[in-house]
């Protein structure tokens, strides 16, 4: 049964791909068929994923891995192989991605109802789902890279969905280019890996590049800087992850990506695509962790951890000062991704992946909640203009609250708490340094703070008076239709349930991933400092919620919203946070200007130097042509004519003697005879 699933594994990405392909051919008015196609494909993929997941579950043996490789093409002696793999990591991701996608598809039916490009939307969403699933099942870094690019492409298409808006187009371009920079690192790493190991297949019964033989070979080889080749390659690959998951240097595109429609943000910028980076690191974990000293993890993992920690705090702090509901969530996603990287860096694959799963669920929930809020308040995104929606949109408020609490990591019932706790626990026991732990805790505090601020502004307090926008007459915000609220409810339930899989008491998730067997043992909770970590986080979170609630509950109450209280307290810091630490301006100043200078220089070079050279060459040839014509004209022709002239004159002279006068000939003969005689007779004496 196991092998039969692996054969059908390739169907999972192909179904949505086919759906999007057919959808692309459909004319705009065929909305229903495109939806049907998309949903059908997604549900098919979901079923197959569940089947695959089930397959991996009941084997119960040691880490199970099904591999199917085939030769794509061969050139010369080398052949390029592709393949897909089914192991716990990919199985769990398959289920998560297909489930979340399906829910978001259903949600977007309601959300995109008015949009006229409805069919195109679902076509792009199908493409995205297919490429995401492709990344998940890829057994070859090449196939993974191909799907990685497709994901980038679909994110560009979806962000720029409303391409009429210049800001959307700019955001799409920004997203595409920034991720492209990260992908460059990934590409270099891939090529280096191929040149070193000769194959890009991860697991090929011993031959794969992630298997021990290749890894040992890589670890030993040293690069120029003394760094192990494996470390260098993994760092390069991590660059791709940084780009895609929006880590510190390359995070600028994520907040701007909010220009796209909310389901897009929910699916791509919350749950799946951004998680691809984390998944890549998880997939390449054997390579990354093949460092010299297994205890403290290889330098690569240290880098991952530090980058994750710093990004978490950095993004959280910016989120505090944002006023756009989707931007706050965006920055929260960036910080949560930081936490995942931190988890991977310190705790290993299980810790990171568990937080990824839980985050995917509640962040999708939060985004869809925000979407329904925006939908309800007629496209209004600025939280300062919202308020008192608690009573107007009760279901949305309920599900949003569940999501908020899961995100903040409210203890016991909410998945966020358990996954974040696991990370903090791992950070706590990280041998290298304790700083990431404290950063993590401070991050948690900030997360709880800005989420509470957001909820207060959006749902509590009083609505500002008559702020009706010009287009719509002032309309009361209303609850979203069922098609949107049902997925919210489902996700809310999931947000709670997923937490229980990875609790220290019953670490099923870790066992599942590592192939072990999980036993329910409540005692574990109190084991080696788990309790301490949980306690500190609970305290931190409650303090943050209380503080934020206290500040912003009053602020929300004032009908004409004043400036943010924090701003009054620390105007400079608040302004700095709101302007996102001026990173965009920094980039603008450095990279872009440099680019402009360089382009201007090359333009000058092209115009002056090369054009000049070409013009010079042409002038030379023209000169040459003139010269040759001149010589030909004067020397050859005239010389030749002269010769002929001479000949003709000579001929004329001779002709004069040949004038047909017989008697003249006779005279000549006579004279000749005479002379001859004279010569003969007297000459010879």
């Amino acid at each position, binding site marked *: 049964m196991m092998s039969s699933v692996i054969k059908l594994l390739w169907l999972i990405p192909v179904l949505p791909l086919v759906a999007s392909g057919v959808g692309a051919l459909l004319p705009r008015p065929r909305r229903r068929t495109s939806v049907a196609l998309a949903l059908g494909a997604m549900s098919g993929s979901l079923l197959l994923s569940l089947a695959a997941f089930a397959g991996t579950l009941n084997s119960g043996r040691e880490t199970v891995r099904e591999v199917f490789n085939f030769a794509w093409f061969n050139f010369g002696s080398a052949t390029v192989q592709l393949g897909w793999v089914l192991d716990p990591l990919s199985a769990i991701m398959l289920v998560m991605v297909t489930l979340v996608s399906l829910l978001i598809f259903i949600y977007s039916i309601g959300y995109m109802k008015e949009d006229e490009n409805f069919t195109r939307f679902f076509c792009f969403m199908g493409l995205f789902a297919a490429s995401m699933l492709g990344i998940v099942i890829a057994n070859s870094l090449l196939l993974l890279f191909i799907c990685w690019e497709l994901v980038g492409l679909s994110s560009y298409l979806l962000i720029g969905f409303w391409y009429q808006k210049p800001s959307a187009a700019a955001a799409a371009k920004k997203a595409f280019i920034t991720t492209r920079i990260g992908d460059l690192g990934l590409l270099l790493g891939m090529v280096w890996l191929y040149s070193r190991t000769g194959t890009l297949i991860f697991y090929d019964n011993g031959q794969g590049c992630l298997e021990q033989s290749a890894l040992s070979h890589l670890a030993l080889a040293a690069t120029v800087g003394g760094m192990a080749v494996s470390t260098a390659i993994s760092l390069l690959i991590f660059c791709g992850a940084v780009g895609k998951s929006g880590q510190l240097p390359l995070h600028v595109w994520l907040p701007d990506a909010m220009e796209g429609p909310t389901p897009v943000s929910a699916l791509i910028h919350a749950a799946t695509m951004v998680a691809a980076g984390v998944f890549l690191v998880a997939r390449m974990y054997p390579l990354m962790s093949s460092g010299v000293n297994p205890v403290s993890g290889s330098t690569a993992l240290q880098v991952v951890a530090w980058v994750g920690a710093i990004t978490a705090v950095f993004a959280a702090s910016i989120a505090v000062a944002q006023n756009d509901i989707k931007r706050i969530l965006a920055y929260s996603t960036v910080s949560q991704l930081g936490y995942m990287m931190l988890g991977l860096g310190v705790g290993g694959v299980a810790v990171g992946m568990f937080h990824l799963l839980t985050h995917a669920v509640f962040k999708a929930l939060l985004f869809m909640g925000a979407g329904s809020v925006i939908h309800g308040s007629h496209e209004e995104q600025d939280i300062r203009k919202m308020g008192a929606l608690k009573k107007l949109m009760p279901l949305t408020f309920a599900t949003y609250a569940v999501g908020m609490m899961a995100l903040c990591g409210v203890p016991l019932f909410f998945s966020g708490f358990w996954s974040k706790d696991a990370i903090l626990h791992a950070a706590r026991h990280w041998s290298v340094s304790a700083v990431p732990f404290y950063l993590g805790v401070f991050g948690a505090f900030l997360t709880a703070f800005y989420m509470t601020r957001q909820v207060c502004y959006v749902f509590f307090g009083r609505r500002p008076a008559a702020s009706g926008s010009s287009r719509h007459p002032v309309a009361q915000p209303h609850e979203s239709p069922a098609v949107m609220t049902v997925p919210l409810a489902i996700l809310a339930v999931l947000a709670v349930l997923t937490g229980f899989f990875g609790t220290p008491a019953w670490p099923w998730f870790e066992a599942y991933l590592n192939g072990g067997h999980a036993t329910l043992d409540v005692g574990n909770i109190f084991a080696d400092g788990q309790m301490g970590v949980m306690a500190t986080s609970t305290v931190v979170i409650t303090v943050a919620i209380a503080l934020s609630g206290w500040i912003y509950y009053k602020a929300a109450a004032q009908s004409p919203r004043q400036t943010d209280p924090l701003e009054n307290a620390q105007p400079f810091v608040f302004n700095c946070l709101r302007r996102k630490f001026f990173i965009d301006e920094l980039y603008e100043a450095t990279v872009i200007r440099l680019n402009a200078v360089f382009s201007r220089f090359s333009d000058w070079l092209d115009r002056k130097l090369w054009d000049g050279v070409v013009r010079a060459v042409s002038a030379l040839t023209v000169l040459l042509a003139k010269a040759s014509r001149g010589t030909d004209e004067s020397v050859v022709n005239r010389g030749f004519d002269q010769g002929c002239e001479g000949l003709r004159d000579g001929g004329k002279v001779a002709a004069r003697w040949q004038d047909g*006068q017989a*008697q003249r000939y006779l*005279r000549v003969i*006579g*004279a000749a*005879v*005479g002379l001859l*005689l*004279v010569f003969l*007779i007297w000459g010879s004496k």
Partner: protein
Amino acid sequence: MPSDITFYLLAALTLAGAVAAMSLRNIVHCVLCAAGAFAGLAGIYLQLNAEFVGVAQLLVYVGAVAILLVFTILLTHGADVKLGSALISSGWKTGLAISALVLVCLVVPVLTSPGLRHEAASGVVAPMMQKIGEQLMGQCVLPLETTGLLLTAALLGAVVIAMNDKTAAGPKTGVPPNHEAGKEPGLR
């Protein structure tokens, strides 16, 4: 002694005829003088005891060639030469000079060369005609035959060349084609 006188006489006759033939204005007179010169030469040949050659000369030149010349003159209206047209072609000085040169080249060696025998040969070979006949039929039979052939060819050729082509003239002349007038050239 008489032979000297006859020789000088004949020589004078011949030379006078020749010079006259070359210098007279009226062509018919020229031809007649030429005939006279040829006759004079025949006489000289007879005087040199070469009867056959002399008689042949008489027969051929005086009889045939002279008549031929006269006929040609009549046929080509040469006789009524327009007065005033230059008798002698232009540039006659060079011509005279060249002929003088030729004369000198011939005469001087004759007069100065020592090897010439001055006395006549001893008695002439008696049966001259007999001898000539044998020679003709003996040693010189080939030249004889070829000469015969040549003469026939010349005869036919001359007739063909000189015959005014009846075809071109067309039937209007009324002369029946088969009534070939033989030697009588068409007078015109």
